[in-house]
C-alpha cells in the first residue's frame, strides 16, 4: 500500500517537472477585453511563429476582469476597452501604462426596408431616440436630416447590449458628451439603466434583434455591422460632416484628438473633419516596472511588434490601425517599460 502511494507521488512529481521543463519557452499571461480578442489571438499566433520562444496566453474575460486581475497581479498584462478610471488607478500598487493597440468603432445599425444605408443622424437626435423620446421613424427631427429619404411612420425599437461591455461604454460616453439630457438621465458606463428598448446579449444578440425586427435601431461593433451587411447611420461629427463608420474615418478620430501622455483620452466626438465620432482606443495595461526582467523584455518586444508589424493585420478584421503620429508616440511609451 505504502509502496503504491510513494510510486504515485513520484510519478506526479515527475510529470510536473517534465511539463515545466518542456515549457522552456516563455509564457506570458494576459486577460481582459473581449472586443479586440479576434485581433489579439491572431497577433499571438503570428508572433509565436516569428518568435517561437515566447508564448502568449490571453483569456477574453471582459475588460472589468482584466483590470481586476492586473491590479491583483495574477497576470502579466491586462486589456481593456475603456481606460482605467482614477479610482481604479488608485488601487494599483505600482504605476501602470496604457498602451493603445488599435481603434474600434461603434456603428449605429438599423432595420428599415427601402431606406438603404447612410441614414443621417446627429448626436442629440441619436440620444433622443435612445432616451425613448423620438418614437417614430418619420419624426420631424429625423426627416429634417434626411430630405432625400422617405421614412415610414413605423415605431422605433431600440436595441442595446444587456451584458456589460466596452462597446456600451463608448456609446454612452459619446451620448453623454453630446447630449445633456442623456448625461443627467443615464450617464456613461459599461452597463447603464436604459430608458427604452430591448436588450440583447453580446454583439450577436443585438445584431439578431436588429435583423429580426423591422423598425429596430441598435449599436454594435463596426466589424459586426460590416460582416452582417447591416445598414449603418452616418453620424454628424464635430466639424459638422456626416461620417459613416469605416476603417479610415475611425483612424481619423485618433489624429483629431490631442493625446494626453497616458492616452486616457476619449476619442468620441473627435475634431477631425473626416473623423467618425463614436470611435475609441482599446488598450493593453502593462506595469511600468516589470518584476521579471526576462518576461518584461519579451513583452516589450511583442508590444513593439504589435504597434508596427501587427497593425497590418487589423484592417481585415475590421479594426482601425493607429495613425502614424500615434504610433511614434506609443513607441516612446513602450520604451518606458522596463
Amino acid at each position, binding site marked *: 500500500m505504502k509502496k503504491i502511494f510513494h510510486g504515485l507521488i513520484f510519478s506526479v512529481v515527475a510529470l510536473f517537472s517534465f511539463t515545466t521543463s518542456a515549457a522552456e519557452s516563455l509564457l506570458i499571461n494576459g486577460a481582459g477585453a473581449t472586443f479586440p480578442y479576434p485581433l489579439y489571438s491572431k497577433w499571438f499566433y503570428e508572433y509565436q511563429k516569428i518568435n517561437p520562444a515566447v508564448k502568449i496566453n490571453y483569456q477574453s474575460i471582459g475588460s472589468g476582469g482584466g483590470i481586476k486581475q492586473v491590479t491583483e497581479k495574477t497576470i502579466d498584462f491586462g486589456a481593456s476597452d475603456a481606460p482605467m478610471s482614477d479610482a481604479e488607478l488608485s488601487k494599483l500598487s505600482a504605476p501602470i501604462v496604457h498602451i493603445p493597440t488599435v481603434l474600434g468603432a461603434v456603428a449605429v445599425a438599423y432595420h428599415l426596408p427601402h431606406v438603404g444605408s447612410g441614414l443621417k443622424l446627429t448626436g442629440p437626435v441619436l440620444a433622443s431616440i435612445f432616451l425613448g423620446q423620438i418614437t417614430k421613424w418619420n419624426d420631424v427631427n429625423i426627416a429634417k436630416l434626411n430630405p432625400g429619404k422617405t421614412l415610414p411612420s413605423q415605431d422605433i*425599437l431600440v436595441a442595446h447590449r444587456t451584458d456589460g461591455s466596452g462597446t456600451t461604454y463608448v456609446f454612452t460616453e459619446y451620448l453623454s458628451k453630446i447630449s445633456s439630457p442623456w448625461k443627467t438621465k443615464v450617464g456613461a458606463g459599461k452597463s447603464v439603466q436604459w430608458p427604452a428598448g430591448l436588450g440583447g446579449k453580446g454583439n450577436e444578440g443585438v445584431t439578431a434583434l436588429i435583423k429580426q425586427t423591422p423598425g429596430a435601431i441598435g449599436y454594435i461593433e463596426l466589424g459586426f455591422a460590416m460582416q452582417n451587411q447591416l445598414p449603418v447611420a452616418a453620424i454628424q461629427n464635430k466639424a459638422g460632416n456626416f461620417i459613416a463608420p469605416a476603417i479610415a474615418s475611425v483612424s481619423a478620430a485618433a489624429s483629431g484628438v490631442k493625446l494626453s501622455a497616458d492616452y486616457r483620452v476619449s476619442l468620441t466626438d473627435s475634431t477631425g473633419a473626416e473623423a467618425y465620432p463614436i470611435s475609441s482606443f482599446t488598450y493593453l495595461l502593462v506595469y511600468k516596472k516589470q518584476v521579471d526582467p526576462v518576461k518584461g523584455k519579451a513583452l516589450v518586444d511583442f508590444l513593439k511588434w504589435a504597434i508596427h508589424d501587427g497593425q497590418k493585420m487589423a484592417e481585415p478584421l475590421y479594426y482601425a490601425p493607429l495613425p502614424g503620429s500615434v504610433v511614434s508616440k506609443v513607441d516612446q511609451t513602450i520604451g518606458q517599460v522596463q
Partner: protein
Amino acid sequence: MKLDRVFEHVTRGFAASLVVVVVLIGFMLFKESLPAMRTFGWQFPATQVWDPVADLFGGLPFIYGTLVSSCLALIIAVPLSLGIAIFLSELAPPLLKNIVSFLTEILAAIPSVIYGLWGIFYLAPWLRTTVEPLLAKSFGFLPFFQGPPYGIGMLAAGMVLAIMIIPIIASISRDVLQAVPEPQREAALALGATRWETTRVAVLSYGRHGIVGAIFLGLGRALGETMAVTMVIGNRPAISASLFAPAHTMASVIANEFSEATGELYTSALFGIGLVLFSLTLFLNAGARWLVRSTMRGAGGGRE
C-alpha cells in the same frame, strides 16, 4: 472487517463533501452580498432601480421577472405534461409508449442555448407577426395583452421555458403514475368506473403528491434557466403587467453583467441576486423532493 470500516469512512467523507459544497456556496453568496445588504438593507429585494452608473441597486424587477416567467411556463407546461404522463402510463400501447418516452427524454437533453436560438429566430418573429396581434385583438381589454408586440419579451420567455420543462414534469409524473399500485385501478374498474374515472379517482388522486413534486422540479429548472431566457426575454429590468413587454430575470442579470461589473457594490449586488435565487431554488427543490418521496414510499405493486 477493517476494510469495511475504511470503506464506510471513505464513502461517508464523499457524502459529506457534498453537504460542505452546498453550505460553502451559500456562505460565499451571503458573505459577498454583505456590502449590498448593508447599503440597501431590506430595500434591496424590494426596490426597482438598477442603475450601475449611479451605484443604485434593487432586485425587485429580476425577482418579478423570474417568478412570472416561471409561472407562465408552468401554466403552459403542466396541462400538457400531465396529458403526456397519463397517456404514457395509462393508455399508450407499448410501442408508442417507448417512442414517446424516448422523445420526451431527448427533449430534456437539448442544450438550452439551442432553445434560445430557436426562440429568437423562429418563435419571436412568429409571436410578433401572428400570436401577439391575435391576442391583442381578442383579449386586448386585459392588461396582460396590451402594448406593442415585439415578439421578444415575457411571453416568449414563458413559452421557451414551458417547452424546456415539459420533459421533466412529464417523465417524473409518468414514473409517479406508474408507481400507483395496480389494485387501485382494479378496485375502481371493479366498481364499474370508466377509464377516465379510474384515472381521476384511483390514479391521479393517489399520485397527487408526486405530481406536485414533479411540477416543483420543473419550476426549479425554470427559475434557474439562464441562456435560453436571456436570448428571448428582452432583458429590461422593469415591471410591466403586459406579457408582451420585455423583462429580466435573476439568472440572466448575473450572467450578463458580472464579467464587466467593476465596483465593489455592483459585484456585491449581483451576489445578492444570486443569494435570493439560490435560496429560492434550494427551498423549492427540497419541498419537491419531500413530496415526491412521500408518494413513492411503499408504492409496491405498481406498473413495471
